[in-house]
C-alpha cells in the first residue's frame, strides 16, 4: 500500500537554510525536499533542531539565510494575503496539541473553519464533529474543554484541528511523545490511514522508532547542523555515520524493527 512518490513533485523545498540563536548555530546550509503524498520522518538527537526546522518551514521562525518554498510559494518573501492563503493549505499539530484552553474541543476544531466565508455555523459544527470522530474521539469529547482530556485525547483533538480545512501538508511535532505504547501505536495507525485516504503529505518530527517503522515512507536525519541523509528505513540501516548507525542499530532500534510488520 506504500504509494511511492513516483511523480516526485517537491511540495516543500528548503535550500541553504541557516538558523542561529545568538552565537549558537542550529542549522547551516540545510537542504531538504518533501515530495507530494509521502510521509517524511525527521529524526535527530536532542537539540539538533528538528522542531526549529518544522517551525522554519511553517513560517514561525525566520531563518538568517536561505529559502523555504512550500507548494510553490516562497514562504519568506510572500506578502500577507499569500501567506494567509498558504496557511490554510497546511495544518500543524503541536506537541501537546496546543489547543485553546478557553474553547471546547469542537470550538477548537471550528476555529480554522471560521476563516471560510459563508460557511453555515450549523454545518461548521457538524463538520467539526466529523473531524473529531475521524481522529477517533467519542462524540461527547467535543463538548469538553482541553483540560478535561487526557494527553492522548488532546493530541487527537490537536490533530482534528490541524485537519479542519483538509490541508495538503500536515506538520506533526512528536505526535507520539508521552503516549503509552497502545495509544502511540493507535496514533501511528491513525496518521498512516488518514494521510493515505486524505492524500496528505506529512512532515513528522519524532524520536519514536516504532513510529518511523510503522508510518514513514522516508526518513531524514538531522545531524551536524544539516540534513545528513534521507532515504527509506532500509537505506538508513546501511549508513556509516556513527550517530546514524547508533540510532538505527541500537537495542531499541532492533526491538522496533522486529515488531514492525515485515520490516516495511
Amino acid at each position, binding site marked *: 500500500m506504500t504509494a511511492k512518490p513516483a511523480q516526485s513533485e517537491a511540495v516543500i523545498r528548503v535550500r541553504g537554510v541557516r538558523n542561529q540563536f545568538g552565537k549558537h548555530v542550529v542549522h547551516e546550509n540545510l537542504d531538504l525536499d518533501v515530495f507530494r503524498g509521502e510521509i517524511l520522518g525527521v529524526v535527530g538527537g536532542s537539540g539538533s533542531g528538528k522542531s526549529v526546522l518544522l517551525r522554519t518551514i511553517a513560517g514561525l521562525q525566520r531563518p538568517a539565510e536561505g529559502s523555504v518554498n512550500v507548494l510553490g510559494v516562497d514562504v519568506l518573501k510572500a506578502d500577507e494575503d499569500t501567506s494567509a492563503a498558504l496557511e490554510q493549505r497546511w495544518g500543524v499539530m503541536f506537541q501537546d496539541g496546543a489547543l485553546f*484552553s*478557553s474553547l471546547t474541543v469542537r470550538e477548537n476544531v471550528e476555529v480554522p*473553519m471560521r476563516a*471560510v*466565508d*459563508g*460557511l*453555515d455555523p450549523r*454545518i461548521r459544527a*457538524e*463538520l467539526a*464533529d*466529523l*473531524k*473529531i*470522530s*475521524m481522529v*477517533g474521539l467519542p*462524540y*461527547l469529547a467535543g*463538548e469538553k*474543554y*482541553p*483540560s478535561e482530556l487526557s494527553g492522548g485525547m488532546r493530541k487527537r483533538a490537536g490533530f482534528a484541528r490541524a*485537519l479542519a*480545512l*483538509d490541508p495538503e501538508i500536515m506538520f506533526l511535532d512528536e505526535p507520539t511523545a508521552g503516549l503509552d505504547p497502545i495509544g502511540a501505536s493507535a496514533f501511528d495507525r491513525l496518521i498512516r*490511514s*488518514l494521510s*493515505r*485516504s*486524505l*492524500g496528505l503529505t506529512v512532515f513528522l518530527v519524532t524520536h519514536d522508532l516504532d513510529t518511523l517503522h510503522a508510518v514513514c515512507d522516508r526518513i531524514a536525519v538531522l545531524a551536524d547542523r544539516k540534513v545528513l541523509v534521507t532515504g527509506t528505513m532500509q537505506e538508513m540501516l546501511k549508513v556509516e555515520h556513527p550517530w546514524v548507525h547508533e540510532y538505527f542499530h541500537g537495542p531499541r532500534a532492533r526491538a522496533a524493527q522486529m515488531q514492525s510488520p515485515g520490516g516495511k
Partner: protein
Amino acid sequence: MGEVPARVALRGDLTVRSVTQLEETLSKLEASGAVSLDLTDVRRLDTAGAWSLVALRRRVEGAGQKFDVVGVTPEAESLLDVVTKSWPSVEEVEPRKRSLSDLLEIVGRKVGSGVGFLLDLTSYLGLFLARLGRSFLHPREFRFTSLVHHCEEVGLKAVPIVALMAFLIGVVLAFQGSTQLRQFGAEVFVVDLIAISILRELGILLTSIIVAGRTASAFTAAIGSMKMREELDAMRTLGIDPAMALFVPRILALLFMLPILGLIANASGLIGGALMSWADLGISPEMFATRLIENTDVAHVFVGLVKAPVFALIIGVVGCYAGMQVQSNAESLGRMTSNSVVISIFAVIVADAMFSIFFARMGI
C-alpha cells in the same frame, strides 16, 4: 414508486468553501425515491463535500431506498469511505430548562461559595500563623535567604514607585487645598490638611493599593505557575512544606516592608506638599516644618502605620491563596492573578474603612 432512480449530477469543486450551497441544494432533494449520484465532473472533493454526500446517502438509505454513486475516482472513494466509517454517532444531551428552584439553587451556591471563600482565607491566615510559630520552634526550617530575597522584591524595588506616587499626592493635596482655603484666608491650614490626610490615611492606603497591585499579582503568578508545573507536588514528595517554603517568607517580607514603605510614602508626601505650598502659597519649608511639628499630633503617624501589618497580611494571604487556586490550564493562572489584585485591593479598602470607624468611635 421510484423505479427509475433520480439522477443527480454534480460538477465543480465540492469543498468546504462550497459546502453550504451544496448542502442547501441536496437537502431539498426528496429522499422518497432511489438516487443515483454522478460525480464524473467533480474536480475536487474534500471532507466537507464528502460529508454532504454521505449525509444524503444516509437520508436516502434511511428511507429504505437505493443509492448509488457513479464516476468516482479512487481517491474520492477512499475519502467517502473514511467519512462513512467515522460518521459521528450523536449522543443527545438533554438541554435543561431553568426553573425557579434552579435559580434559588444558583443563588444559594453563590452565597455558599462566598462564605467558603472567606473561610478559606481564614484558614490560609491560620496556616501562615501556624507555620510562623513552627519556624520559631524549628528555626532551621525557616528560609532566611528567601525572606531577604522577597524583602528586596517587595520592599526595595517598590520604593521608587511608592515615593513618586506619594510625592504627587502631596503636590495634589497642597494645590487643591490651597485653592479652597484661600477663599477663607486660611492658607496656612494647608499644612494641617496635608499632614493629617497623608499621615492618617492616604500614605498607607495608597501604598497598600500599589503594593497589592504589584505584589499580590506576583505572589499569585509565582505560586500558581509552580502549582501548574507540579513543583508543589514535587516539594511535598521531598518532604518540603509549601506553606513553610513559599508562604512564610513572602507574607513575612510584606509584614516587614509595608510599614517601611508607608513611612517612605509619608515622608515623600510631606515633601511634595511642602514644595507645592512653597511654590503656590509662599509657605517656606521652615514655616511648614514648624507648623507641622507644633500642630500635628504624632499620634496621626501611629494611627496610619498601625494599619500597615493588617494590610500586609491581607495582601499576602490573598496573593498566596489565589496562587493555590490555579488549576492546570493557563487561563486559570491569568484569571486568578487578576482576581488576587482585585480582591486584595477591595479587602484593603474595606479594612481601612473599618479602621476609620474604630478610631472614630474610640476618639483617637
